[in-house]
């Protein structure tokens, strides 16, 4: 007759290493890898701070993503120490892990001892469904999705670049999306500004964008700024956000946004387009260059035509706006290599992407100075940008 589950478990516990919660607590402080193998609902009510979650139902397929180095010590726990013992056996005997311990008494004993407990922010079943493709990625997971939900991103312009960026940031669950645009939807916009539609012609772009976003993802709060950004309002608006997406259509405002964002230490994901060509870079104050390091001086009007004059292929702002949204997500999640100190140039006709290095200018008029050296009186006081940009050459 085959042994009972309880008997097998006893045998397993004889073979594997078990460890007391007090020891686990000490090990946590020195950076040990602690893995909670309980189910989602149990994890959601509270877990050991710093633990990673790999439910036992997905143990074999996900543990290697969390613990790629099989020689690293791993401590497993569950509610009472039974499931973690089974799981430890699997890791050691089936998957070749060299150093695995199961915590005796499980999370129940941990709590009884009065040790610290972390309660994750609540994500509803509907959210877990909506973001399930994100939750599956090691680089995102529940923690990453929470970061996205907590993020506040400001879009400057709900036009060619802002439209795709807003759509995909909303889809990703960026919790607060601010939009600055004083324009109304025009028929000629619909060739590329896909957040709007034929029924919205004549409607304010911020209202149109809000309606589309609300229908796509009710988790997102849209903050509308139906105005043109200027020296008189920028310092009231920018500080409320973590990241700025620059989809601007003119130079004076680009320099204004640059200076303000450097002083506030807010990263700007900046793109520009014309015809079939796009440029993209990330300006992260003091970590990389600012816009002025790249272009200290704007070009004269004849070297900087507008899309209204020159035309633009509709898909191009779609591509560049999506790339902007990608950089925003990378910044929020702190993953990958953002385009800091790099300028990407995309040629849609050739289907090529080239990159050049952008260096911090040690003599930059703005970012060579420490923002704390700039007094309150200077904050919000900007040189006359329109004259500056209009007056060159």
């Amino acid at each position, binding site marked *: 007759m085959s042994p009972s589950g309880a008997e097998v478990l006893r045998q397993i516990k004889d073979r594997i290493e078990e460890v007391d919660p007090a020891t686990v607590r000490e090990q946590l402080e020195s950076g040990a890898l602690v893995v909670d193998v309980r189910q989602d609902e149990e994890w959601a009510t509270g877990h050991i701070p710093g633990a990673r979650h790999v439910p036992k139902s997905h143990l074999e397929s996900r543990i290697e993503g969390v613990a790629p180095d099989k020689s690293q010590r791993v401590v497993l726990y569950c509610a009472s120490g039974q499931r973690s013992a089974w799981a430890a056996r699997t890791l050691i005997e089936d998957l070749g892990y060299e150093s695995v311990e199961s915590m005796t008494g499980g999370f129940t004993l941990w709590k009884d001892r009065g040790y610290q407990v972390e309660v994750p922010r609540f994500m509803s079943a509907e959210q877990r469904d909506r973001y399930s493709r994100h939750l599956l990625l090691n680089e995102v997971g529940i923690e990453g999705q929470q970061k996205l939900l907590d993020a506040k991103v400001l879009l400057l312009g709900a*036009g*060619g*670049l802002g439209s795709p960026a807003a759509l995909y940031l909303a889809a990703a669950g960026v919790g607060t999306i601010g939009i600055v645009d004083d324009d109304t939807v025009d028929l*000629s*916009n619909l060739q590329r500004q896909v957040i709007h539609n034929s029924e919205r012609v004549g409607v304010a772009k911020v209202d149109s964008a809000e309606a589309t976003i609300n229908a796509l993802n009710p988790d997102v709060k849209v903050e509308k700024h139906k105005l043109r950004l200027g020296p008189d309002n920028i310092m009231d608006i920018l500080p409320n956000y973590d990241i700025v997406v620059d989809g*601007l*259509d*003119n*130079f004076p405002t*680009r320099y204004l946004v640059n200076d303000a964002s450097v002083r506030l230490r807010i990263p700007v994901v900046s793109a*520009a*387009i*014309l*015809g*079939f*060509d796009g*440029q993209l870079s990330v300006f992260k104050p003091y970590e990389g260059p600012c816009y002025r390091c*790249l*272009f*200290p*001086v*704007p*070009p*004269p009007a*004849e*070297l*900087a*035509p*507008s*899309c*209204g004059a020159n035309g*633009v292929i509709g898909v191009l*702002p779609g591509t560049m706006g999506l790339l902007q949204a990608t950089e925003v997500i990378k910044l929020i999640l702190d993953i990958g290599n953002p385009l800091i100190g790099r*300028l990407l*140039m995309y*040629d849609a*006709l*050739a289907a090529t992407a*080239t*990159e*050049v*290095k*952008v*260096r911090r200018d040690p003599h930059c008029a703005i970012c060579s100075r420490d923002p704390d050296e700039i007094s309150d009186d200077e904050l919000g006081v900007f040189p006359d940008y329109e004259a500056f940009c209009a007056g*060159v050459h």
Partner: protein
Amino acid sequence: MATIRIPPVLRPAVGGEREINADGENVGDILRAMAVDHPGTESQLFGADGDLNRYVNVYLNDEDVRVLDGLDTAVGTADTLVILPAMAGGAR
């Protein structure tokens, strides 16, 4: 002889080409050779003093020539020069 990548705003002045070749040992020579072949590019690249206009960036492969030797930066046959003025785009 090196390859020069032409930005959209300058393409009309070089007959619509995205890339052209020009002769020269250094960045300055190559750009001046291009300006001789395509006079429309002269004023857009160079100021009255013969220096590169400050609103135009030129890269030798992926490095801004201003952090190298500027217009004196040596250029080989396998190198590419990229000319980059700022773009603003927009509907207006």
